[in-house]
């Protein structure tokens, strides 16, 4: 059995498993019924490492979570791959998957926004720049959002804002920790002021989450910029990043033009942010699931002590499904 078949098989199994479990509105996540979506680099037999230029088997790269075996460079992965990497096998169910972008401003630049949306869906294999859902990480329930950079640069328009907001609301309802994996160029200009206001909307939802004292872990990945960094991404109780990811508010070029000087090479890297007190830790993708799992455990065990008598603390995926 080739690797591709293996993946396909595995996904079909998951899909079956999920279908049996779900009887409510939430439908099974796209990932589970379609073959993995690859960008041009990853789908050819060989890929060149962005970090060290070495040639890598794409299949091997994929198996290795997108990490280069030579230099550990963290290549971008799709939202679906990320979800697969982080959640327990088969234990993720997408919510609010039927929210689609519109063209509220009737926006046209060199090309109509409507066309861009269609192209983005086709090239990214995703319906918008984010996937949200409920799943488990080492048997602990979690509300998870993962941004899809391939979809118009992971830009935040009304759909991204709405999906994140609903995910947070769901987390509050179900007392779940929230994890958001960011990767974005910022706000989506084509939706004008409406996209700007999604910064306020998501932050306002996080204010409620904060008051509810629920954990929010923000994971920053290559690249995270603009209105996304300047709203939900920087509001984590714990903020972590993958190594070498570029993160900032303004783009490097804009800053260089403004201040008329060259910026240091490591400027706006995860390492720079750590040095400048902006993030809690840099976590390698290979340790990410364990890290998140342990943080969730550490942040829930004191509270759960009181409710110990009520039995085990573990979240079964079946319990979660009932909530969706």
């Amino acid at each position, binding site marked *: 059995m080739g690797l591709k078949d293996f993946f396909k098989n595995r996904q079909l199994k998951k899909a079956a498993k999920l279908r049996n479990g779900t009887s409510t509105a939430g439908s099974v996540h796209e990932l589970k019924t379609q073959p993995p979506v690859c960008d041009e680099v990853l789908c050819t037999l060989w890929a060149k490492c962005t970090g060290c230029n070495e040639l890598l088997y794409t299949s091997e790269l994929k198996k290795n979570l997108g990490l280069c075996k030579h230099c550990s460079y963290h290549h971008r992965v799709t939202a679906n791959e990320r979800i697969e990497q982080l959640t327990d096998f088969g234990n993720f169910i997408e919510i609010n998957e039927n929210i689609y972008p519109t063209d509220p401003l009737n926006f046209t630049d060199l090309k109509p926004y409507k066309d861009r949306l269609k192209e983005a869906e086709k090239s990214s294999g995703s319906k918008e720049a984010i996937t949200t859902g409920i799943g488990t990480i080492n048997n602990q329930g979690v509300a998870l959002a993962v941004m899809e950079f391939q979809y118009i640069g992971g830009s935040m328009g009304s759909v991204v804002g709405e999906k994140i907001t609903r995910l947070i609301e769901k987390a509050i309802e179900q007392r779940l920790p929230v994890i958001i994996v960011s990767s974005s160029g910022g706000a989506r200009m084509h939706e*004008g002021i409406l996209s700007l206001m999604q910064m306020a*909307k998501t932050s306002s939802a996080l204010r*409620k989450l904060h008051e509810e004292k629920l954990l929010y872990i923000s994971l920053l990945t290559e690249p995270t910029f603009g209105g996304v960094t300047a709203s939900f991404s920087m509001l984590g109780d714990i903020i972590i990043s993958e190594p070498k990811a570029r993160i900032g508010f303004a783009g490097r070029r804009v800053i260089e033009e403004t201040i008329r000087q060259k910026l240091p090479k490591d400027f706006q890297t995860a390492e720079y942010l750590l040095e400048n007190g902006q993030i809690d830790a840099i976590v390698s993708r290979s340790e990410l699931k364990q890290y998140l799992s342990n943080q969730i455990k550490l942040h829930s065990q004191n509270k759960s002590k009181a409710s110990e008598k009520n039995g085990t603390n573990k979240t079964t995926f079946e319990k979660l499904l009932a909530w969706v």
Partner: protein
Amino acid sequence: MKQNNIVPLDFEKPLFALSKQIIELESKTIHNGNKKTVENLKIQYENVKSEIYKNLSPIDKVKIARHPQRPYPLDYINLISPTWYELHGDRTGKDDYAIVGGLIEIDGQTIMAIGTQKGRNIKENQKRNFGMPSPEGYRKALRLFYHAEKFNFPVITFIDTPGAYPGLEAEAHNQSQAIAMNLRELAGLTVPVISVIIGEGGSGGALAVGVANRILMLENSVYSVISPEGCSAILWRTKDKAADAANALKITAQDLFELGIIDEIIPEVEGGAHYNPKETSQDLLISLKHHLQELSKLTPEEIKKDRQEKIRTIGKFLEV
């Protein structure tokens, strides 16, 4: 007809030329009876004027919003309040002059006023960084938001900024987090927050002091996710399509009102508030009083809920 040393914008130039002609002719014709020509010119002037100002394009409004003589927050504060006690600093290393904050009074009630403040000349703009705040400015504002909540002061923010400053130190000091925290904490305030876009509402840098129960805009102000120039550069791949971008982005007060983002448009005198700051400020004051009055009927929890629900509904999408 006298332009009060107002610097004309490009589209105003015909008007200024006409005005000059009339004045010249008038002084010459005092003693000969050539009144008819002057009368005709005056009629022409009025026609041209109403046509120009009736058909302002979005990019024209951008120009008015950025007019170097446009009133800034401290001008309005000065015109609407008998009191102004400025409070300085983020307490941790900098006083950012691109953001001003302090106490004013309206109807015998203490208000926390916050503004993004541009400078009037080069020297002042160096000090105020052309109205582009640093993280420390946003953190000063946050400190004052908390102060306002503690002492039950409504908050009024006056917004006129090209945006948050894109600089090295700003990034090093976490501009993103400074803005994000303001968004989150403004959403949670239990005192009324009213924001007024008085000039340029520049993206996240404006929103960071603009999450409010009521958002008002002056008639010729603009509010956008990105500057028309920036949008043009990115989407049109040229800097020359700012006018097109300004159209496409829907950034005028009228646009935002129609999109349901803002609650009220404050009228300006013909040509813009800089032609008569006093009059505009009085209209603004009336509106502020009205909204303060309305919001005063709510309990602290209701005020917070009102703001959060307002924000919650923003966005257009299709759900099937």
